[in-house]
C-alpha cells in the first residue's frame, strides 16, 4: 500500500476504471456483439471515424477546425465573464451598497438557465461567434461573481488593518492585499465557470451554428452516424479534462505562495 503516493493511487485507479470501461465496450461490440453497431459503435469504428474526420473535412471543416471554433467561442465567453465577473464580485464584497443595489438583478439572472438565452442571442447576434459566446458568458458569469465575492468577503480584517497602518490607500489595499488573498477563491470560481461554460457551449452549438463540436454531434444524429457522435462526445470530454487540468496546474505558478502553504 505504502508504495504509491495519494496522487499515484488516484492516477492508478483512474487508469483502472477507464480500462474496465474500455474492456466492457470492446466485449459489448467487437467481441461478442451484444449491442448492434447502429446503437453502439465499436472502438475500432470510432477510431476509424476519428481518423476520417481528422483527415477529411466534415461539413466543411476537419476536426481541428471544429475544435478551434468551439474553443474560440468558449474562450470569448469565459474571458468576458472573467473580465466582468471578477470586478463585479469584488465590488459586491468591497462595497455593500453596490451589492444591495445589484444583487436582486443578479439573483434573477442567476436562476435563468443559460439555454433560455439562445433565442435572444440569435436575435441579437444572428448565427455568429457572439451568439454561442453569450451563452457561455451567461453560464460562466454567476460562478465567477459568487466566488470572487466570497473570496473578498473572507479576507480577514486584520490584513486590511495592517495595510491601512502601513499607509496603503483603499485601492492599493485592494490590489496588493485583498485580491491576492481572495485569489484562491477567484480561481475556484474560474474553474467552475470554465466547465459550466464548456457544457453550455456544446449545448448552444447543438442548436445554432454550422461549425463546432456540438454541431458535429448534431450532424451525427442527422446522418444517423453514431460513430460521429462518439467522436464528438469523446473529444468534448477530453478537451474538458485537459482545460481543467491546465487551469489547475497554472494555479501554482500564478499563486506561488500557495505552493508552500501545502
Amino acid at each position, binding site marked *: 500500500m505504502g508504495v504509491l503516493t495519494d496522487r499515484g493511487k488516484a492516477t492508478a485507479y483512474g487508469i483502472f476504471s477507464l480500462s474496465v470501461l474500455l474492456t466492457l465496450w470492446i466485449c459489448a461490440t467487437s467481441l461478442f456483439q451484444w449491442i448492434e453497431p447502429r446503437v453502439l459503435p465499436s472502438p475500432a469504428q470510432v477510431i476509424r471515424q476519428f481518423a476520417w474526420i481528422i483527415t477529411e473535412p466534415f461539413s466543411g471543416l476537419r476536426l481541428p477546425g471544429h475544435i478551434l471554433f468551439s474553443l474560440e467561442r468558449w474562450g470569448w465567453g469565459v474571458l468576458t465573464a472573467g473580465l466582468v465577473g471578477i470586478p463585479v464580485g469584488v465590488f459586491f464584497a468591497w462595497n455593500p451598497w453596490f451589492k444591495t443595489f445589484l444583487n436582486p438583478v443578479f439573483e434573477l439572472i442567476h436562476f435563468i438557465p443559460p439555454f433560455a438565452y439562445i433565442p435572444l442571442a440569435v436575435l441579437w447576434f444572428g448565427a455568429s461567434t457572439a451568439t454561442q459566446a453569450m451563452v457561455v458568458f451567461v453560464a460562466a458569469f454567476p460562478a465567477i461573481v459568487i466566488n470572487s465575492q466570497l473570496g473578498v468577503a473572507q479576507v480577514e480584517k486584520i490584513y486590511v488593518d495592517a*495595510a491601512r*497602518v*502601513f*499607509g496603503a490607500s483603499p485601492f492599493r489595499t485592494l490590489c*496588493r*492585499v485583498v485580491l*491576492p488573498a481572495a485569489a484562491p477563491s477567484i480561481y475556484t470560481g474560474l474553474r467552475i465557470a470554465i466547465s459550466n461554460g464548456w457544457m453550455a457551449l456544446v449545448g448552444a452549438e447543438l442548436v445554432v451554428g454550422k461549425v463546432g463540436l456540438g454541431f458535429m454531434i448534431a450532424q451525427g444524429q442527422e446522418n444517423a452516424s453514431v460513430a460521429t457522435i462518439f467522436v464528438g462526445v469523446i473529444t468534448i470530454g477530453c478537451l474538458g479534462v485537459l482545460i481543467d487540468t491546465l487551469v489547475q496546474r497554472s494555479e501554482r505558478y500564478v499563486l*506561488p*505562495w500557495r505552493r508552500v502553504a501545502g
Partner: protein
Amino acid sequence: MEQSVGKMASGSTNPATEAPAKLELRNISKWFGPVGDGVHAVDDCSIEVKKGEFIVVVGPSGCGKSTLMTVGAGLENPTQGEVLVDGKPAGSPGPTRSVVFQKFALFPSETVEQNIKFGLQMTGVSAAEQEARLVEQLKIMGLELFRKSYPSELSGGMQQRVAIARALVMQPEILLMDEPFGALDAQTRTILQEEVQRLHREKHYTVLFITHSVEEAVYLGDRVVVMTKRPGRIKRVIDLPRDVIWKTGDIELAAEHPEFIEFRREIWGLVREEIVSI
C-alpha cells in the same frame, strides 16, 4: 511593601509642565454597537506615552486592551474621547504609528522582503532607501536567510520577527504592539522579549505594549497600566524603575531579582482581583 511601591510610583511622576505626550489617549470610551445596548469594551481610559517611554497595558483577557490599541492606532474611532499625537488630533492611521499585531498579520502572498518593504512603498520611499532600510532590518532581526521566504514557510517566532521588522523599518515615532508574543512558545517568547528590551534601550522607541503577562509587563515596561475587566477602565498605574540592572540582562535573571518579584506580586494581585471578581 505594596505601600512603598506606591510611593515610588508617585515619586517618579513627571510634572505637568512638560512637553505634550508623544501619544495620548484621552478619556477614551468605546462601544461596539449602539451605546447602552452594544458591547461596552472600554470606559474612560486615559493613557499618556511620553517620548522614549515604554508603556505596558495589562488586564484580563477580553477587558478591552486590543480595542484600546486599535483606537490608538486610528483603526477604530472611539465612541468618546480623542487620540493625540504631540498634542494634536492623530487622525487616520499612518506610518508614524506602526503596529505589531498579535496574529502577525503578515501578508501571506508576499515574501519577507515584500512584507517589510510594504510600508516604504506605500509612502513613496526611494528604491535605494527601501533596500538600505530592508537590509538593516533583516540584519537586526536575524532574518537575512529568509528574505525570499513566504510567511507560511516560517515558524511563528520568525513570522513575528518579520512583523516587528515591518513596523520598525518605517522608523515610526510610536510603536503599538498588541500581545506580540502571545502566540509564541515559551522559549521563542523569552528571546524576543529580550530583543525588544535591548532594542528599546538602544533606540529609545516610544512604545505602547499590550500583554496579559505580568512578567512581561514588569520586565519591559517603564510604566504599567493595569486595566479592570470589561468595560476596561484604568485600575492602577505603576511606575517601574528604569535604569536598574535587572532590566539590562536576561529575563530569567531579572525574574529572580527581589525588586522584580515584588512588582510582579503587586501587579499580579491587581490583575487577579479583576479575574476572580464577578
